[in-house]
């Protein structure tokens, strides 16, 4: 005779385990932000765009390393036709701009539209914690977009170096602070402004459109004012080319200023001006977003 199992109805069982308070609330919000921007644990259609952009950011690096491998195998004497670490930011910069335009509204707008902020307001979480954690999720993803392809290229090219892997790794270490600095610049230039727009707009599509519109219209307006007018000081209209500042500062960081024909370069702005514009917009946007969320929560 087999022994039969018995089912006990334990009813409601009080929780007596660990409670991590504010620290736990912050880490949950951060993890939720990362999942949300990639559509994880959400429907398939929410995953398509973010993962397509991930592929777009990574694929060129993989292709570059692959071609470099073929070149080193079949024509060791030939000079590599592929760009530097600095040049690769031109590819990832555009992809990150699109990603941020989609991700910032996804992070902030549903919580407001669907009333979820009232749940956050009943948990051990301050408004600054909420918006700070949401920003951290976005900045983490931006940093990932920027750095992962660079790491792939750094290691890939070192592995193919005629000088040997470890020597190439050491020889190129002076590129690392430049890569990190450029990543910070792109993150500051794109993310805070996108969060500001997502704080004001009530719909995700509108926020994405407004953000990209500001970038496109700003670039067009700056180009028109700089190139079509001869008024004194008109070159400072190049400040309006918000999307061009990180590229200009990146060229400065990598010591390639003047290598690209952009509105800002044509206007002859000092790279410090571009950096100041990036920092000013980032700080002003962040202050507004924090102020707004302190009123909402």
């Amino acid at each position: 005779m087999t022994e039969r199992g018995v089912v006990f109805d334990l009813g409601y069982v009080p929780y007596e385990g660990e409670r991590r308070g504010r620290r736990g609330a912050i880490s949950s919000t951060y993890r939720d932000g990362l999942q949300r921007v990639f559509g994880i644990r959400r429907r398939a259609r929410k995953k398509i765009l973010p993962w397509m952009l991930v592929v777009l950011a990574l694929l060129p690096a993989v292709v570059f390393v692959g071609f470099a491998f073929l070149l080193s195998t079949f024509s060791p004497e030939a000079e590599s036709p592929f760009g530097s670490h600095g040049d690769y930011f031109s590819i990832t910069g555009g992809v990150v701009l699109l990603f941020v335009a989609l991700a910032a509204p996804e992070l902030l707008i549903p919580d407001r539209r669907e009333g979820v902020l009232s749940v956050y307001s009943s948990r051990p979480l301050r408004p600054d914690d909420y918006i700070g954690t949401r920003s951290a999720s976005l900045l983490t993803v931006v940093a990932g977009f920027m750095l992962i392809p660079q790491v792939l290229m750094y290691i890939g090219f070192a592995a193919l170096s005629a000088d040997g892997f470890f020597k190439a790794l050491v020889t190129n270490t002076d590129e690392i602070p430049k890569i990190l600095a450029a990543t910070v610049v792109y993150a500051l230039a794109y993310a805070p402004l996108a969060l500001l727009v997502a704080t004001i707009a009530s719909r995700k599509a509108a926020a994405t459109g407004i953000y990209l519109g500001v970038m496109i219209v700003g670039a067009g307006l700056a180009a028109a004012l700089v190139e079509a007018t001869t008024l004194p000081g008109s070159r400072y209209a190049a400040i309006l080319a918000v999307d061009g500042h990180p590229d200009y500062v990146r060229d400065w960081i990598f010591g390639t200023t003047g290598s690209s024909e952009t509105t800002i370069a044509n206007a002859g702005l000092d790279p410090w001006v571009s950096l100041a514009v990036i920092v000013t917009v980032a700080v002003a946007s962040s202050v507004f977003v924090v102020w707004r969320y302190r009123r909402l929560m």
Partner: protein
Amino acid sequence: MVDAPILSARDLGLAYGSIVALHGVEFDLPPGRIGLVGANGAGKTTLIKILLGILRPTLGTAAVLGFDATKDVLDVRSRIGYMPENDCLPLDISAAEFVVYAAGLAGLPRNAARQRASDVLTLVGLEEERFRPIEGFSTGMKQRTKLAQAIVHDPELVFLDEPTAGLDPEGREEMLELISRLGGFGINVLVSSHVLGDIERTCDWVLMLDGGRVLRSGPLSHLIDADTVAVEVIGDTDAVARHLVAAGATVDVAGPRLLVWTSTDDAFRLVRDALADSGAGMRSLGPKATTLEDVFLEGSGS
């Protein structure tokens, strides 16, 4: 009041510009199931938001579970749950995902959050539907999910703001049944509602607000059981009333009907004696059925 109050307020006030939402609110509420009643605009949601630390009072103080609601906001929020009146559910994820997330937001580790979410969703009757996206839920299922997120972390006190709003009669019954059971789980409850019948069924203490002020606060049994006897007299009603007043009772006369109340004696016995002494008869005699609505209307002067 024997137990330490779980909620208290002293001279609490809040104004939105020139509009006074709460004024001079004072109370001490004991552990258990508390009903917060009042008409729309009476200040119920404003009071809850002050207790949660979302709104800062312009006057006075409030305490939740012994913590200052203004200064110790995180201590308060670590110990309470909140089911808002309005929508608070993300539509694109499942109930299970959201309730796990809500538990994580309350500080529970990931594994414990998953276990608790599963248990609580079963408790509220969503074990079958918990993996479906919330956007496909009925109003009743959404209300259950809202309740689940409010209690998933086993709070000491849960605020339920209009928990039966939008529910059909069957859903309302089930929600009231769930609320009634919360006390048995060791969770103190504050239920805000303008439906007085819901409060009568679920609570043992009532705080009444009217126009931003406290109208009444006390045990439900005291408020609705006023020891009042209704008697319909055949004969000389005035003579019966005179005998009752002489015996120390308070009497309201409405045609042949008398409402008799006494704080010192058994009202039924006084009525019997008055009828015998005056030689009158009676058509009916019984306790006056006082509802929370009667108490509210009497207090608000409506």
